[in-house]
């Protein structure tokens, strides 16, 4: 279980970006963090992973306060997929192998290789194993990053705008893989995403941020014409299309 209590953050000499963020999440749930640009979504994600150091508050993952742990200990519990996907001349296998870095002592063990093999198999990356990362398409690279994160065997997966540079096929594929892993394996995931319809399609929980504060949180019902107006300053409605919720923005 995830319990975030009173997380606050501000940049050096700048205004406060996050103000007393509180939310909880059950194991196996897939949470979407929503809100306008610059509202602090990515900052919150980075605070949870201690890439940025929150000034106050606590973040409990299965009862352990993550903010008191070392980077190394956090890496064994939380995996992070950045929105800046690497484009380096390393093979897919080697990049996925990086996921075992938090467990590595002098070198990688047979078990590490097995876990990496499983992660690649899960995302159907075996055919690309020997290719260099800079020879792959954007969608393939994003899947490699996801495989690397899964090889970390985390309890919590953090994804920062993972679909921002992907075509519709790859957007659905990546989010479907994450949702299936959450539902089947009990992994908890948090995604920062702009596309509300993608969020409604794949996520179970929603956290809406406004001016660095939690505006609303809960299931899909938190997305309403009123929240669209207050959070995104747009007029819109939530439609029911063949049993699925969809956001329709009016001109």
């Amino acid at each position: 279980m995830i319990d975030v209590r009173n997380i606050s953050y501000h940049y050096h000499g700048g205004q406060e970006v996050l103000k007393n963020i509180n939310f909880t999440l059950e194991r196996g749930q897939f949470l979407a963090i929503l809100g306008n640009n610059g509202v602090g979504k990515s900052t919150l994600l980075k605070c949870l992973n201690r890439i940025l150091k929150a000034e106050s508050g606590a973040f409990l993952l299965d009862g352990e306060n993550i903010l008191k742990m070392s980077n190394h200990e956090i890496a064994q519990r939380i995996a992070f997929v950045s929105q800046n996907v690497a484009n380096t001349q390393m093979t897919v296998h080697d990049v996925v192998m990086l996921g075992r870095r938090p467990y590595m002592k002098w070198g990688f063990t047979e078990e590490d290789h097995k876990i990496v093999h499983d992660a690649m198999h899960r995302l159907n990356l075996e055919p690309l194993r020997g290719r260099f990362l800079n020879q792959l398409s954007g969608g393939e690279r994003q899947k490699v990053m996801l495989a690397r994160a899964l090889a970390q065997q985390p309890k919590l997966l953090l994804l920062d705008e993972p679909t921002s540079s992907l075509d519709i096929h790859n957007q659905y594929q990546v989010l479907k893989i994450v949702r299936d892993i959450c539902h089947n394996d009990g992994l908890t995931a948090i995604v920062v995403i702009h596309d509300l319809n993608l969020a409604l399609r794949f996520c179970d929980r929603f956290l809406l941020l406004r001016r660095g504060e939690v505006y609303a949180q809960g299931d899909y019902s938190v997305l309403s014409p009123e929240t669209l107006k207050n959070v995104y300053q747009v007029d819109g409605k939530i439609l029911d299309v063949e049993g699925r919720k969809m956001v329709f923005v009016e001109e």
Partner: protein
Amino acid sequence: MNSVRLPSENKHDLTDYRKNQIRSIAFLILLTVLLLVSVLLSLRAGSYNTPVSELIKGIFGKSADKKVNLVIRNNRMPRICTAIVAGAGLGLAGCILQAILHNPLASASTLGVSQGATFGAAFAIVTLNLTGGVGISLWSFAGSIAVAVVILGLSRLKQISAEGIVLAGVAISSMLTGATTLIQYFANEIQLANLVFWTFGDLGSTDWNELRNMSVMVLILIVYCTLHRWDYNALLNGEETAVSLGINVQQLTLTNMVLCCLTCSMIVSRVGLINFIGLVAPHIVRMVVGNNHVYLIPGSVLAGATLLLLGDLFARVAIMPIILPIGAITSFLGGPLFLYLLFKGGRQR
């Protein structure tokens, strides 16, 4: 075109990974063989012509000809070992600086460490009127360390980015080059000749004691970097990813900067200004093995050592019996080589 991959493609791509591994290991073996051949050629090169078997015996002082033992052990071997150790250190430091600063142009000379050493030497020769010995080496060492401290201070206190560090290095280099020119302007003829000779670089003036100290420093760098090989791989995927993989990026950057600056300043203060080895060696290896530091680190060590040894060989045999300055040779040959790699890489992209 659909994106369905046939089973035969799977097999092909699996083989691709193995092929890539085999190519990387084969390249490291090739570099080792090339280094050994360069050592043999360097042993042979010179006015004292001897059969290879006698030369090898001479390394252990077992040659029947006492003169061969003397020439090999006191003259050629220290020179060859200095070239290998200095080249290995400069190559590896270049490779690591490029990784931690996310900049393919990073090297001791780009950061101003080499220019700091030159300024230190110029100050010792002209202002303090030193003519040789340990004094000049100590001052050049102090100069390069001072630059390293300034760069580290900027990165730590001001927390400037990796790209910012390289830009700061360029600014410091420019400032120190200007300061060295000013010092030269006030030098007399003897001082000027002494300073110019120092900046040429000389592999032949190192004794076994100096070589031992330099070897220990390079060995420490090799061991440290080998232990952290996967950290550099993680850094290539971005700082955020590296932190999320449990790496203390700030500490890693700081430790590597200190070790690389120490190694480079020690080398430059012993053998003079040698450019381009730290820049070119990692790029040559990268073109074959890619960016995986598991292969890139030993490759840069071997390529750096081989390049400097071949450069020295060229300097010795080009217009025998005159020995050309190694610093000028590495710049003269390294510049076009780097341009070739740059344009070849550009075309590939």
